[in-house]
Structure formats: C-alpha cells, structure tokens
C-alpha cells in the first residue's frame, strides 16, 4: 500500500519526525488497521524521496513506541494499540495541526489577540455547520 504521508517543505520539524508523527496519526486514527503490512524501508524511501537512513530511523522509533513491529524475513506490520495510546496520539496529532496553522497565521498577522478572536469566530461558524 502507498502511505498517504506528505512531507512539509516549510517545516523545521526533521523529516524522520514528520514521517513518524504522520504514521502514528494514521495508526491511531484507525486509517491503517493493526496487522497491516507496511511498505519496506526501501520502498517507502523511494515513495517519499528520502534516504533509507531517514525511513529506518522513523520505523525504529515507531517500533520502540509500540506502534509497529518488524518480523524477520516477513516485513513490518502495524500493531494493535491500547485505547489510552490511541487517544493520546490523536490529541497530539490534533495539537500539532493547530499549532502549525497558528504558526502560519502568525506570518500574516502577528497580533495574537486578533488570531484568538478569529479562531473563536471560525469555531462558532463550524459549530453551526456541523450541527
């Protein structure tokens, strides 16, 4: 399967960390079920146009954190994660997205109060839409 990972050009976040966080979010969000075979390090490196050193680092960290496991001679698979980890990871992913959006908004308007007001307006608009 081809993983829907997109590396941001305007982020200071290291590339291995972007791969790691996005994969975590995909797993915790239930987009990739436990037991799913992940692409090999070489294949993912080709797809993302990064080195195997970078991809291996992301996979190793994910393995240490208990999100994936490598079975010698078979490949790398998504592990089942507990509810607490799932919730924490989703929270973290959401927080990262919001932080990034605010950071980008700050490039257009450095007034934090203004951004806060705007954020609340957007939230109440969305609340109306989603109801």
């Amino acid at each position, binding site marked *: 399967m081809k993983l829907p990972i997109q590396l941001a050009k305007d982020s200071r976040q290291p590339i291995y960390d972007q791969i790691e966080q996005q994969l975590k979010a995909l797993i915790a969000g239930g987009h990739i079920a436990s037991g799913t075979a992940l692409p090999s390090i*070489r294949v993912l490196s080709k797809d993302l*146009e990064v080195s*195997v050193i970078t991809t291996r680092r992301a996979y190793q960290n994910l393995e240490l954190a208990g999100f994936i496991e490598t079975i010698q001679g078979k490949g790398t698979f998504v592990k089942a994660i507990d509810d607490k980890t799932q919730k924490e990871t989703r929270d973290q992913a959401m927080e990262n997205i919001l932080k990034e959006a605010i950071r980008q908004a700050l*490039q257009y308007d450095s007034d934090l109060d203004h951004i806060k007001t705007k954020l609340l307006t957007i939230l109440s608009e969305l609340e109306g839409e989603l109801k």
Partner: protein
Amino acid sequence: MSCIKVKELHKFIDDFHLGPINFTVEAGTVTAIVGANGSGKSTLIKTLMNVWKRTEGLIEFFDQDVTRSDDWKRNVAYQSQKIEGYDIYTLTEMKSFIKMWYPQFDEDLFEDMVNTFQLPKNKPFHKLSEGMQQKMALSLTIPRQTDVMILDEPTAAIDIPAKKYIMDLLVNWLDRGERSIIFASHEADDIKKLADYLLIIKDGKQIEYVEKETLIERYTKLILSKPVAEKLATELDRSHDQREVILEAGEVKQLHQDIKENIISELRPDLEELISALLK
C-alpha cells in the same frame, strides 16, 4: 558492514587530476555520484572498477584490494556509460557469455525485462538504437544477482515508462538483501528516489559524501520581502533579485534584525537547487 572502501584515492590522466576521494559504502545503501559534465564521475567509476589503474590510494570491495585479484568482480555487476565489446553480438549470445561469469544469473528476471523492453534477441547490439542498447545492457546487468551494482548513467537514453519500470526493478533488487548500488546520474528524479548518499564531485575534487537528508537539513531557504545587499556568512546561493537566499539553517537565529523582519517564509531547499548551488 561496509562493502566498498575508498581512501585517499587519486587518479591522474593527462592533465586531469581526480582526487582525493574518500568514502565508505555501507551494505544496503545507494550512493549517487553527482557532478557536472567532465567533473570526473566516469573516471572515478572506471578507477573503482580497476578498468583504469589508480595512481594512489586504496580501493577495497568486500575487504579485498581491487588490484590483488579479480575475485570481487564476480560479486559486482558493472555497466559502463559507453558499452564496449557488445557490438557484433546479439542478446542471446551476450547472455551466454555473461552466464559463464555469473552462473547465478536470474533467467526469469531477464525474460521479464526482455519482454517489457521488447528487445530483439537475435539482432546485433550495434544495430539497436541508443535507448534499446541501454535497455539491453541493463537486462544483462541487473539479473546477475550480485551484492553490488555500479552503473554509469544507466538510464540517460531511456524513455519515461521504461524508467519507471527500471526504478521499481532496482528497488525490488535492493530489497532482496543487503545490496548496494553506486550510480552516476544527471537525472534528478533517479537521485531523489534511489540515493541514500551523495558523492558530489567538482573538477575532480570530492566536495561532499553525505546522507541526503543531512545535506538538506543543513540548509534553509529564506524568502525575503526586500533584497539583502550583503553576502551572509554561511550563504550558499541567492536568486530572484536577491530575495531568495540559501544559507546554513543555524545562521538564521543570528541574522541581523533588519533581515529577520523581512523573512516571508523559511523553506527546506530542494535537493536539485542544493546540488546546483554546490556545483556552481
């Protein structure tokens, strides 16, 4: 575990001097040799393969000095830029020669490549177009099942669909063990998709042997609202009326307040623009 070791390598030919070259290839990794025309890429590859004798230094494949014996060659598949010695022979004839040297030759992979490329089996090599010649050479190189492949501009004359097929083949080939590739290329796409390490050479001198993301993350590209007049300390390149500057990422924090206020955005430079800047 390293599979290729090069130390203080020098090669003099006429008035061209290649070197010093120093790098070690870890098994399971891909190194792209990058440089302008005439920078010494093919000279380096020929010297590595001991086709041209080195003037000074050390070259080892699998811990064996390349000048001692030819044993290591059975585990290295090499494709030169100009394919020599194939001229009057057909694909079928070439394959039987090559099988003598590489008895483990993968017939299934060979057949798959020949069918995909629609190669004529009984036409002499010199009667084929340049692209077909390169496809034929690859069909005789990749199936050798060696641990190392050394390819000098392997896809320069090849069409887009075949390039994609070859890329997938090489990725598959690499996945079948701790295999390594060294290739020289001008194709940005091949370098981005396949290379782990870059060996950048300029006028015969090695300027970098570096892992791809280490190089990319070393630099940052500033997009500025106003041009900066002075050259910055770690500046590598600038363009677009001095409003795009590539510099070392660490310098951004120390920039003068005037410049900092003009930063519209800070981007990670593209591999292509970094290579061009380093080769200027």
